[in-house]
């Protein structure tokens, strides 16, 4: 637009006596960004600092408090009272808490989580309680005791378990995600390996060590195996790593390029293979036997994902009409339906409740177009979509959390990619893993 203004000014100077109308070109930017706020009140909960028993527990207790607070905040279902607005008391048992302090004033919390954290014979013991501040007669909602090893990992685990329990009881029946893991690709030293981390970005560690390019990791529904595509002697092959045995397990090789494995809820595997010359979608069992082909069209068919609710549908990306678009079909290949109609769509992921598809879409694709690839949400039944990201960079590889409230995705490309997470309405974006992390996948549980 600035160039046009300079040209216009130059032309205006050349023709002083003439009344020329110069209408500047307006390039309307169409961004759609909405939220899915249904207007219902969120439960207001206060997480008190737990009472520390012994002095050596202080450091671990601080970790525990921080992790519990961030877990409850990340859940997306609570209105969490900020630490500065709540009483400074640290009640350790139900008899010690004064509900009036927590239920009124600036705190105004409907529920309080409190308890005691102590180390007993080398084990961290946590007694946790959740009280309802408005029910003076029967305040207790939850009373649990946890025991783990007395180290950082143990404190985090207890905090995650407690947060999951609170989310299950108070968050509307859907279990929390605090114990779920994210598997992703870590690029470094010339190779790409599969790494894993907690859902909040902690505990990042390597899973595979193959020394080659390994991409698109997908963990199985029972958290026992990770399937991914790895560049071997004969091209890209599907490989499976067993998390229980801590080693690779066998998966039959096949010719062509085999990419993007996807687990169904009942243990089947769908992947894209070009063994017939053209990439098509194949479905096999978890060990790679009885592979059968279910798409049959010219043009690449890649990136399948199952419907987690019913297990009877697949969504995938097909280039049968030119640019890659999102399609859905039944597991036997019938009922092919096209979902997107324009642009360049990739990396589709189906939400756990079966209602939405999340995918990366470049709606204005082509020479001279503004471009910009962002994460979009589409309602499967009505094909209406919302844009979730805008202006943070090139977004790709969205993956749903098991509670259907969060989406993890990659921002940037290549060596500068990062893994970010957000709530499913596009708010609450923050970074989970730094540069060199790509292609995240959230576990089923």
């Amino acid at each position: 637009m600035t160039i046009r203004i300079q040209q216009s000014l130059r032309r205006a100077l050349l023709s002083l006596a003439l009344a020329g109308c110069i209408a500047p070109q307006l390039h309307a930017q169409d961004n759609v960004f909405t939220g899915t706020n249904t207007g219902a009140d969120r439960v207001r909960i206060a997480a008190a600092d737990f009472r520390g028993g012994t002095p050596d527990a202080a450091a671990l207790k601080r970790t525990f408090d921080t992790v519990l607070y961030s877990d409850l905040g990340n859940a997306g279902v609570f209105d969490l009272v900020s630490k500065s607005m709540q009483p400074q008391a640290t009640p350790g048992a139900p008899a010690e808490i004064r509900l009036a302090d927590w239920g009124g004033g600036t705190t105004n919390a409907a529920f309080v989580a409190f308890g005691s954290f102590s180390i007993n014979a080398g084990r961290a013991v946590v007694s946790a309680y959740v009280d309802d501040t408005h029910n003076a007669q029967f305040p207790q909602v939850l009373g649990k005791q946890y025991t783990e090893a007395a180290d950082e990992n143990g404190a985090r685990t207890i905090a995650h378990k407690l947060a999951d329990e609170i989310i299950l009881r108070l968050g509307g029946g859907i279990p929390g995600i605090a114990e779920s893991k994210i598997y992703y690709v870590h690029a470094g030293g010339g190779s790409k390996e599969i790494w894993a981390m907690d859902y909040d970005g902690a505990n990042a560690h390597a899973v595979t060590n193959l020394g080659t390019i390994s991409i698109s990791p997908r963990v199985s529904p029972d958290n026992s195996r990770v399937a991914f595509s790895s560049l071997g002697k004969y091209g890209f092959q599907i490989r499976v790593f067993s998390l229980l045995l801590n080693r690779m397990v066998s998966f039959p090789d096949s010719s062509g390029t085999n990419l993007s494995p996807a687990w169904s809820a009942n243990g089947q595997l769908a992947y894209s293979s070009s063994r017939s010359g053209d990439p098509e979608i194949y479905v096999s069992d978890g060990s790679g036997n009885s592979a059968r082909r279910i798409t049959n069209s010219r043009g690449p068919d890649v990136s399948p994902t199952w419907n987690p609710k019913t297990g009877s549908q697949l969504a995938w990306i097909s280039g049968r009409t030119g640019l890659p678009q999102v399609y859905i079909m039944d597991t036997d290949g019938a009922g092919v339906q096209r979902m997107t109609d324009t642009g360049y769509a990739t990396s589709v992921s189906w939400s756990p409740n079966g209602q939405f598809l999340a995918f990366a879409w470049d709606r204005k694709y082509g020479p001279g177009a503004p471009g910009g690839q962002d994460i979009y949400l589409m309602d499967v039944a009505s094909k209406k979509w919302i844009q979730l990201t805008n202006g943070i960079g090139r977004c790709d590889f969205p993956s749903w959390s098991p509670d259907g409230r969060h989406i993890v995705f990659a921002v940037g490309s290549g060596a500068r990619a990062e893994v970010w997470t957000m709530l499913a309405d596009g708010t609450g974006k923050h970074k989970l893993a730094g540069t060199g992390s790509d292609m995240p996948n959230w576990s089923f549980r």
Partner: protein
Amino acid sequence: MPAVQEPTRTGRTTKQNFVVALALHGIIIGGIIGSAYVFHKTGDAWGDKADVTGAVQATMVSSVPLPPKVQPTTDNVLASESPSPVPPPPKAAAEPPPKPTDIPIVVKQPDKKQPPKTAEAPSPKPPEHPQPAKPQPDKAATGETAGLRVAMTAVENRAGTSSTNVADSAFGQRYAYYVRALTQKVAQQWFTQTLDSGAPGHRVYISFRVERDGTPSQIQIAKPSGDATLDASALRALQRIDTFGPLPDGYNGQYINVQYYFDPKQ
């Protein structure tokens, strides 16, 4: 006196004037035409490049967050949308035709009884309209959600009031948080776009069971409202729900019976 020399002036002939005028006109016209070439717009006009002409891209919403309808207060007659209970002005009574004996004609008639003065026809009493019964407030006057009375919690949501009545009263006292979460979850799933805003606001009572693992079952209409759309929307709200969350651990029973009413306030 020295002669004032008038400066010589080159007179322009008419022809010369005409040519000059023509030239100036030519410059102006040529300039206009030239500017059309110079300033010709290349590229798209606004909106040309759009893939979808016309309408804004549709946004996906599963429920439209309508602003809460402000309930008109029936106390203040001026603010009410519905007709106020003030009785209509009394009908002007038709004047009875004057009797011929109304106007006394002075006639000398002794012992003539005075013409009976007819009383004015009493205007009919204005018909009494039945006053509309004031709706009983079903929530606290301060606007907060109802306190934890015996096994009854009411939630005010954007569409109306929903209330649960758990058959086992001890459950509602002991596990009030569960009843509150249940109420709120159903209220969230109740979509009211299909409701007829002109239909009279009756209540539909739905009864269902919540099993041990939190799934609703045996969803039935306990008392229909007379408005089939309202009944159907209430049933669908419950059918949409997968689970309310497992029943509290301290509760020994296998299920709870819940009766839930949906009331769309106008």
